[in-house]
């Protein structure tokens, strides 16, 4: 445990100890937003709602507002505190009961210290706390695969949440940007509950991640990352239970390096991403009618667990843990949209079992995909009508799960069958 304490103290002190403790010069910046969102599950994998309680035509509405205070102390230290009050109503069809939930939840609690002379583009930043994190600037709905907030390994899962295509992480981030185009991030983060017990238990374990990204002019942007998921378990007995023995096809324990191989939540995740803006290679006069996002092509892929093991749960086939997403920003100048993104995803996980007792994910139910449903898609649009007010919309068959008032997702994907789809509309004010 000394290692964890040392890491904590190191995180707290590193980067700050060279600063003299003078009287702070504080500038406070309030900001906030409010939105009303309405959506419908037009066609689900449980049309009558017998299993999930969520039949076709169910309505999903949200009204939320967030208040964020940002304190800038002596220019270099930014302290951001944000909380959100939400109300969600869910009206299932076919006589299913209507539910209303409310929640007041913490959304951001971080301190950011910037080093370097240019504080708008610091060469080094140290962040500690609970913070939003997005590494793939193009992804609007799918992708952002690297962190447990969005994906898991053993068993793999993927989470999509309308207009929330990023992670929220608890821990330490150290970021460096050099030459204005080469960015590296190192993160030591603690597993947090995403909600509903989905896959990310036990919580508290620490993961170490490294991401790198290079942006050439405005033409292409490439990045890659690795996440040593649950590298430091708080309680190893929960992360790698002694009873969760990996079995071979004959049902016998697998021996690896002289030891019995155990199923574990620990994993190594890999990620790569790329975006390309072809209009930047054309003469300036030719592209003057296009919006900044128009015509961009992008993609992201990840391996949700590098190691193959065990004959059950399909852990012996890495291709089933290998999602790939490609996207295209459809030129929309004609309609005046901010952007219109079409995203397609291939994900080959074909398991349809319930996780048995004795495994790290016992008592949770993993996503039960049928064998031929490997493709997902979504179309996301945004339009700013006036400064401070915008409309966002999505239609698609993605990894949709219901979300409660506090932003927690439920266990199961609801769009797993042929022809399943849903849509969402959001009217958002912000200052």
């Amino acid at each position, binding site marked *: *445990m000394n290692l964890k*304490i040392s890491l*904590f*103290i190191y*995180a*707290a*002190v590193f980067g*700050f*100890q060279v*600063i*003299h*403790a*003078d*009287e*702070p*010069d*504080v500038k*406070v910046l*309030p900001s906030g937003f409010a939105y009303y969102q309405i959506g419908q599950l037009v066609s689900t994998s449980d049309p009558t709602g017998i299993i999930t309680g969520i039949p076709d035509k169910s309505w999903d509405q949200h009204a939320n*507002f967030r*208040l964020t*205070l940002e*304190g800038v*102390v*002596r220019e270099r*230290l930014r*302290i*951001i*505190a*944000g*909380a959100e*009050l939400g109300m969600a109503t869910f009206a299932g069809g076919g006589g299913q009961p209507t539910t209303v939930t*409310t*929640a*007041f*939840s*913490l959304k*951001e*609690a*971080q*301190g950011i210290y910037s080093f370097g002379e240019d504080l708008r583009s610091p060469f080094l930043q140290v962040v*500690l*706390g*609970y913070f939003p994190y997005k590494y793939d600037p193009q992804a609007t709905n799918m992708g952002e695969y690297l962190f447990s907030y969005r994906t898991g390994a053993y068993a793999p899962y993927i989470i999509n949440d309308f207009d929330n295509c990023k992670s929220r992480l*608890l821990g330490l981030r150290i970021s460096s940007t050099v030459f204005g185009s080469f960015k590296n991030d190192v993160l030591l983060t*603690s597993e*947090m*509950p995403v909600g509903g017990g989905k896959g990310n*238990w*036990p*919580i*508290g374990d620490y993961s170490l991640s490294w991401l790198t990204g290079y942006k050439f002019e405005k033409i292409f942007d490439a990045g890659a990352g690795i996440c040593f998921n649950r590298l430091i378990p*708080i*309680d190893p*007995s*929960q992360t790698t*239970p*002694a*009873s969760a023995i990996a079995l071979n096809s004959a049902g016998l324990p697998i021996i690896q390096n002289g030891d019995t191989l155990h199923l574990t939540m620990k994993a190594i995740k890999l990620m790569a991403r790329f975006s390309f803006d072809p209009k930047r290679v054309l003469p300036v006069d030719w592209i003057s009618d296009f919006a900044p996002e128009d015509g961009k092509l992008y993609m992201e892929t990840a391996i949700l667990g590098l190691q193959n093991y065990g004959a059950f749960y399909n852990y012996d086939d890495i291709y089933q843990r290998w999602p790939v997403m490609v996207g295209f920003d459809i030129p929309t100048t004609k309609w005046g949209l901010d952007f219109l993104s079409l995203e397609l995803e291939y994900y080959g996980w074909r398991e349809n079992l319930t996780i048995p007792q004795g495994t790290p994910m016992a008592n949770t139910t993993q996503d039960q995909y049928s064998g031929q449903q490997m493709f997902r898609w979504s179309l996301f649009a945004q339009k700013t009508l006036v400064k401070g007010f915008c409309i966002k919309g999505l239609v698609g068959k993605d990894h949709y799960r219901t979300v409660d008032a*506090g932003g927690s997702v439920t266990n199961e994907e609801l769009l797993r069958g042929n022809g399943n789809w849903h849509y969402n509309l959001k009217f958002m004010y912000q200052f």
Partner: protein
Amino acid sequence: MNGKRLLLISGVLLWLHAAYAGDPDIKVTPSASVYFQIGQLEQTFNQSLSLPDKTWDQRCDLRLNLNATVQDHLRIIVGAEAAMVTQVQPPIGNQSTGTTSSSSYAFPREGQGIYSFGDDPENSFLQIALGYFPFKYNPQASNMGEYLFRTGTYPPFLINDFGDCEARLLGLRVSSNLFGKLRLDALFTSETYYNPLGDYSLSLLAGFKPNRIIDVGAGVSWNRLIALDPQATTSGIVYASDGITPVMENGDTLRYTFQGTKLMARVSFDPKQLFPEGFLDFLGKEDGKLYGETAILGLKDYGSYYNDIMKRWPAMVGFNIPTTKWGLDVLSLELEYFAFNYDQFTFPPGSTPTDGLNADKYLSDNFFHWSLFATKTVVGGLSIKGLIGKDHYRNTGSTSPWAGVDNPVSSSSDGGELLVAHGDWHYTLRVMYSF
């Protein structure tokens, strides 16, 4: 939830009003703090088996506050808090795996109006505060002490909560500051944490600081003086030692009650002020201070449980260890003696207001508690706090978020103290940003 929502919405409206109405008589100051905290119960008494040795406790928390000053004399303060708590417990007994729990909660932190009389509101001779407010009367106490409000009577209990060595009270406060040396407080407050809720208590406190060398204070609290539901506050019959004969007092049957009179006294002494000015400049402002606080948690002896006032008499002494060398803001060592020693103390059904509930179960030879508390401001806006000790640590779960700790008198044993045996201890570290 309605109260929390109302408080939050009030805060937002207040802020929006001040920000956009342009009223020159209203000045609004937003502030916030966020922290990330980890801690571990290294060794516990394991009394409920719910939090075994090596339990890992981690939390992230934010507080948002708005402070509005209306025409100089009226201050309105609203604040809310949201937190995420994670506890990871290793396997217990024959279990092969441990358990993990997580909770998120939000609650009002502060909601009060303060009116200051006199020409100088900053040094008002009379202040009236109404609402839900923090209250700290012992400026030196860093973890233990603050007994007048952070304790209970019949049965006695003590609360320690890392980083929150103060009380949060709902009701009325009238304060007077005379000659810059004598402070008087009268409080009429309603019980918000521990059942039965709502009872009103009347408290009087006085503090005298004639110079920078010494600071003394005393107080009395008539705990649950006005019971909203007398039957919930006072019920079970007190029997004589034969267990059959009811005890009579002033012609009436004597009954067990949560009502009690608490007394408190405190003192702090700063010996470095006795030296010539400049002689001890190498010491920090808090360095070397000696302080103490004691209280009686129920003046009256009665019944078989409460027949010895000495067992309801905690006493705490503290010393601020000079730390200039290490640059800490403060390093406080506090020691406490508290002799309440029922080691198998469950109230028998039908005999007390705590019928069926559990009180803290101290082992009979464990009267001493201790803690070492440190805080360091690294840079303006960023501080680190840490505590190690054997104090009155309780589960800081989500069942009683208003209090910050679980209910010490509850139908579940989870609210009990966890560090009651020899060698028990825990530690906590917090990184905190605030502006």
